[in-house]
Structure formats: C-alpha cells, structure tokens
C-alpha cells in the first residue's frame, strides 16, 4: 500500500479521520452515551422518581392479574381498538394497562394508559414525571427536536461513531498493550492512556452498540437498496415488514360482534405452551369483534427482543399459526436485543450501564486529549487561538455540565410542586437549563476555577440525593430498608457513590492560580498542564 495517502501513510490518514470523526459530533455522542445508559435502568429510575408507587407484595397469578386489568380496560375504555396489559415482572412491579382508542380522547391523544396496583387492581396515582424513560428516550429523540429530525441527527452521529471506532482500531499499533497501560501524572500521555483504556476496555460493547443503533432504523437511514429493488410504497414496506416481523401482521375487524373467551383461558393456553417462561404481556385486538384475537408474549432470556408472540383467536381459542422467523430477521432481532439488553439479568445490566459510562468517558477523554495536544503544540508565548479556548471551555460544559443536568433532573423531581402544570416537562427544562448554565459558567469564569466549582457542585448534588429523598418522601434509605424496597435503596446509594467519586475528582483538580501574570492564555496553559498531570496522578 502506498504511503502517499490523503494525510500521508494509511495509518496517518486513518488517525486524522479518527480524530475528526470522533470530535465533530462529540457533544452529541457524549449525550447519547450518558442518556442512553439510563435505558438499562429506566424502570428502576421510574420506581425512584414515582415515590407514590407501592412496594410490590402481591403474588397473584398471571391469569388473575390479566383478568383484573382487562376488566379495568373494558370498564374505562369500552370503545377501544386494542387493549394491552403489561404483567408485573421483577423490574416492572405494577400492572401496566394501555388502550388504543378508536377516536382521540378529550386530551387529543389516541391512547390511554395507567398503572394498576397488582394487590388491589386500583389505579396508582403517581406524580407527573418523565422518569427513567424520558431520560433514555432522549438518546435517540433528543427531546426538543421533532422525532423525525432527531433520529436522522442521531443516525449521522452513529455513523461518525462507527467510523471513529473502526479507524481507532486501525490506528492502534498495540491494542493489547494499551489495554493494560494507564500511566498517571504524565500529562498528555495520561489522557491518551485514559482514552485508550476506556475505549479498548469496552470495545466489543462500543462496536455492538453503534452498529445495532443503525439497525434500529435500518430502512430509514439507508433506504437505497429497498428503493432500487422493491420501491418505497406501502405495499413494498408491508411485504418487507411481514418478512422481518412475522406474527405481527394485521388482522382486520369484520364488524360483527361476538362473545369472547375470557383472558384467563388464553393465559392458561399460553402457559401450556411456555411452561417455564413467565409471561410479559397479553393484548386483545378488536375487542368484541368476531375477528378479535389475543397475543401473548413471554419474558425472554435468550438473545431476542421478546420473541414471536403466541396468537389466539379470541372467539374459538384456536392458535393462529405464525410463520417461522427467517435467519436475517433472527439476526437483526438479536442485534437489537443486544442493544437494549432486554434479556439481561441484574449483573449484566450493571455491566451494560458501566460500559455506557465508559463510552461517555471515551468521548470525554478524547475531547480533553485533543485540547491538551493543541496546547502542547503551541509555541512558547504564542497567542492561544480562540478556537482552542472555545473548545477548552465547552469541554467543561459538555463533560461536567450534562451530569449536572441529570442531577438537576432528579432534584427537580423531588422539589417541583406536585400540582405544577406540565410538571414532567419542567423536570426536563431543569436538566437543560442547568446544562446551559454550566456552559455559561464555563465561559464566564477562569477555567480551573470553573472546573473546581462545577465538579464540587456535581459532587454535592449527587451525594445529597439520599438526604433530599428522605426529606421530601417517605421512601428514604431507612424506610427503604424496612420495606425491603431495594430498588430505591440502591438508587440512593448509587447517587451517593457517584457524589463521592466526584468529590475525589474535585480533590485532584488543581487549585487556581490567583495572580495571572501575562494575560489569560499563558495562565490557562499552565493550569491545564497541571490539571492534566494532577488528574493523571
């Protein structure tokens, strides 16, 4: 291979591409890693952010629970097109009921949902909160942006990430050695080691999560082959999706009313087919119609998103045959299951979560490394380019500002008045307002002071979450222990640990130089050099 490529030899060209493909959308990638990581504990975060939820104590059978839930749905929404009942699981301890309405309700929504207490069958009234889902959904919907735009922005970011990962691997001469190398107190070298370790340690996760992120929107992101060979009309899409998702084909209502079998009967039939799998949901499409049918899904422990559901004719109880899933659909389903970790037990879930944070660390160390490298390349007493000062300051807003926003989101959940209109939306506003304030603070304050102040605030906000929880609800750590409410207890402890870790980082940050000698730039340079050395060791 010739050495005269775009940026010199092949490896140099790829190193250049690695730097820029990683850097250009780094803010987006960091945001995706931080918020996406909460997806592995979205239901647990929901549980903490809705302290009104009862601690589960019911051990009724799936058939009993489904009967209670279906009765509730039929009573509250008699004219619905579909009912859905999410059965309690280890992670989701309430009964979730959902109805697709034929006509939008008074609130303009074409659906209605609620949580029921499994013990009583009554709706559980919880505070208006976005919970863990709102946090995790942001990693692909970006919150303030229209969904159709956001998924393409995220898609471009994901492609850049894929490129940065592959070129990062190609660039590495000693990937195995780098895995074990973390030299402290060596300035720029320490940041490079930290970047390499965080990248290589979770490399399989990074590759999987990036590629599978693209697979979620396979034909939205890359419609070329579909367009060229099948067209993009509705018929082509129906044919394609029937191939990829067998068992989900629509069965139209016929308009004749009929007596339906009770849901308990269907649950019994499903349990005969899946004797060892706990059921996850049951749904009823076209209730009251002669073409009504039940669908039943189970909790899966294999590499799939939930598997093909069982379908039953709701009038006769006969099983509706489902076509076998083709190999390519099994592959894409498995890839998506790996992304979501639906099959993961609690230990694997923690591994997923920490790998996601390592992804964020990879982006953060890459950002610091880039700025640090530019600093060391400056000639002595040379003016510091504005672009470099801008990057150094926005780095702080990105790296510390977003976790500050997340902490503010949890605080807002406890402190905003319960009767506040659009309360859930205001929780999210708090996240972004604090994040924006972090950027403003990074720009206004001397840089090393800004680092210390923001990291100190981060440590305080997270470390005080257990106290805040104990003062504002009756689900504090002591009560959680007494009630056996381990999810809320572990949430509080995790915040405490994160706060302590942030405090340890704060202690290692350099104390600001009080008397600048020759303008801001040289001071910043000295501070950064010390910061790199100090943070490294």
């Amino acid at each position, binding site marked *: 291979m010739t050495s005269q490529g*775009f940026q010199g030899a092949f490896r140099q060209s790829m190193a250049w591409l690695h730097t820029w493909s990683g850097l250009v959308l780094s803010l987006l990638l960091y945001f995706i890693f931080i918020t996406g990581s909460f997806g592995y504990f979205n239901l647990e975060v929901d549980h903490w952010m809705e302290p009104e939820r009862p601690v589960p104590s019911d051990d009724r059978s799936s058939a009993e629970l489904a009967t209670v839930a279906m009765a509730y749905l039929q009573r509250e929404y008699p004219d619905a097109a579909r009912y859905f009942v999410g059965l309690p699981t280890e992670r989701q301890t309430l009964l979730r009921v959902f109805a697709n309405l034929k006509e939008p309700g008074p609130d303009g929504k074409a659906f209605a949902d609620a949580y029921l207490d499994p013990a009583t069958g009554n709706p559980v009234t919880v505070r208006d909160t976005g919970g863990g889902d709102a946090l995790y959904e942001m990693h692909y919907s970006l919150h303030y942006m229209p969904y159709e735009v956001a998924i393409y922005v995220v898609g471009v970011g994901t*492609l850049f990430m894929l490129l940065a990962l592959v070129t990062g691997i190609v660039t590495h001469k000693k990937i195995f050695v780098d895995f074990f190398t973390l030299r402290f107190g060596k300035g720029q070298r320490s940041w490079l080691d930290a970047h390499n370790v965080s990248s290589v340690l979770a490399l399989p996760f990074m590759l999987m999560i990036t590629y599978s992120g693209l697979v979620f929107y396979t034909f939205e*992101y*890359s419609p070329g082959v*579909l367009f*060229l060979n099948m067209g993009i009309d509705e018929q082509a899409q129906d044919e*394609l999706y029937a191939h990829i998702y067998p068992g989900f084909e629509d069965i139209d209502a016929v308009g004749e009313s009929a007596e339906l079998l009770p849901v308990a009967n269907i649950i019994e039939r499903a349990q005969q087919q899946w004797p060892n799998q706990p059921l996850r949901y049951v749904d009823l499409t076209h209730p009251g119609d002669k073409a009504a049918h039940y669908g039943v899904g189970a909790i899966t422990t294999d590499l799939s998103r939930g598997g093909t559901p069982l379908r039953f004719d709701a009038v006769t109880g006969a099983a509706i045959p489902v076509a076998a899933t083709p190999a390519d659909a099994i*592959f*894409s389903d498995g890839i998506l299951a790996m992304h979501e970790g639906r099959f993961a037990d609690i230990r694997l879930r923690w591994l997923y979560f920490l790998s996601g944070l390592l992804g964020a660390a990879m982006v953060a160390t890459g950002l610091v490394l880039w700025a640090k490298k530019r600093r060391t390349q400056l000639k002595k007493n040379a003016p510091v380019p504005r672009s470099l000062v801008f990057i150094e300051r926005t780095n702080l807003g990105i790296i510390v500002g977003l976790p500050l926003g997340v902490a503010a989101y949890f605080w807002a959940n406890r402190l905003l008045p319960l009767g506040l209109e659009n309360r859930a939306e205001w929780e999210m506003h708090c996240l972004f307002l604090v994040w924006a304030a972090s950027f403003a603070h990074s720009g206004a304050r001397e840089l090393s002071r800004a680092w210390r102040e923001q990291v100190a605030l981060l440590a305080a906000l997270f470390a005080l979450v257990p106290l805040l929880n104990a003062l504002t609800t009756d689900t504090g750590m002591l009560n959680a222990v007494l009630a056996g409410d381990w999810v809320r207890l572990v949430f509080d402890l995790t915040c405490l640990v994160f706060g302590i870790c942030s405090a340890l980082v704060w202690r290692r940050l350099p104390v600001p130089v009080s008397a600048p000698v020759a303008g801001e730039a040289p001071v910043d340079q000295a501070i950064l050099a010390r910061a790199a050395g100090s943070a490294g060791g």
Partner: protein
Amino acid sequence: MQRTRKSTKPTLTAAYRWHVAARGLLAFFGGFALVSAVGALLATLFERSGLMPQAQAVHVMTLVGYLGWCGVAMWVFWHPRLGRLTGIVVGSTAICLMTNVGLRAL
C-alpha cells in the same frame, strides 16, 4: 490540494478546508450511493439465483451496507487524488445501477 506535504506545520487554507469538505460529502453521500447501488445489484443476483427471497436479499444487503459505507468512507479519506476518487465512486455507482436495472428488466 493546498496543504503542502513538505511543510511540517500545514497551512489550513480555505482551499484545503473546501477539499476536506468535498471529501466529507463524497464519503457520506457518495458512500451511501455506491453502497446502495452495489447492494441492490447483489440483492438482485441473490434473488434471481434463488439464493433467498427478495425481501430477505434487500434486508441482508442493507444490513451489510453500513459496514460497506464505513469501508468506503475510510477509502475516500485515504485515497490521495480526489478527482480520480470521485470518478471511481460515480462510475462504479452508475455501472451497478445500470446493470441492476438491466437485470431486473430481464
């Protein structure tokens, strides 16, 4: 390209920036066009040879296409000559598109 190879400290001229932007556009859009055209042609071959049904061939080639795009993007940012590179990408895309249209018309 305005960036001088002999210089140890490259000058980031406007021409160099436009050159990088052109490579970026070629990598992104040209990459997708090439990968889609090659993928469609291979999908047609798989389908017509009875290897797999049409929907499966389209799905498989789209899934593989992301990796292909990554390879094309790397190649675009390595190949030294942008003009020749553009010719290869556009030409290969056109040949694959025409062959695919011809095959599907048979």
